[in-house]
């Protein structure tokens, strides 16, 4: 995830998918919210 997000930080679809994976497979809801929060910030800046 770290490497993919480094390469495509503004890929909202990827962030959403990672958030789902973190929440449902890796039992990390906080990590999921963090990833979605960054996506939301990026969207506000027009990505």
């Amino acid at each position, binding site marked *: *995830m*770290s*490497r*993919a997000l480094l*390469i*495509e930080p503004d*890929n909202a679809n*990827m962030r959403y*998918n*990672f958030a789902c*994976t973190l929440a*449902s*497979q*890796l039992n990390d809801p906080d990590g999921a919210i963090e990833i979605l929060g960054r996506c939301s910030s990026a969207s506000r800046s027009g990505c």
Partner: protein
Amino acid sequence: MLARLIRGGQVDDGLAAAERALALDPNLAAAHAVKARILSESGRHEEAGAEIEVALRLDPESYEVNRAAAYLRFRQKRLPDAVRHFEKAQSLMETDVSSPNMLITCYTAMGDRESARRAAQITLARAQKTLAQDPSNGAAMGFCCNALALLGQAESARAG
């Protein structure tokens, strides 16, 4: 949605082009599939379903037709039908990574853990093959992460 082209402020989602193609040849299965995909993305599932029925009758072995059918049934929450078409699509195109990735979601939602793992192994193998040729392919990395997470390799998923 991603296929939409914005030209001069007008959104051209490809529907007009598909309809022009079908006016020339109504037996083009791929054109019916494109039309179905666009209608489905707009929530017009009933019309999309009619297009898919025609497309499948014309060419049941088409990758494009099976992909469009799979996504339509997925959106309609008809998961067993979606699975059937995603399985067919992944068998028809061995470089297709997104179909096995979608199968992970479908099988997990259906409670079929064993099939989900099998889909994850296919996703991982295909995504790694893509990355071997294109190491900076972010989408392929994403598929790897999701597959690794399902296969219980959490640390690899977080790092990859």
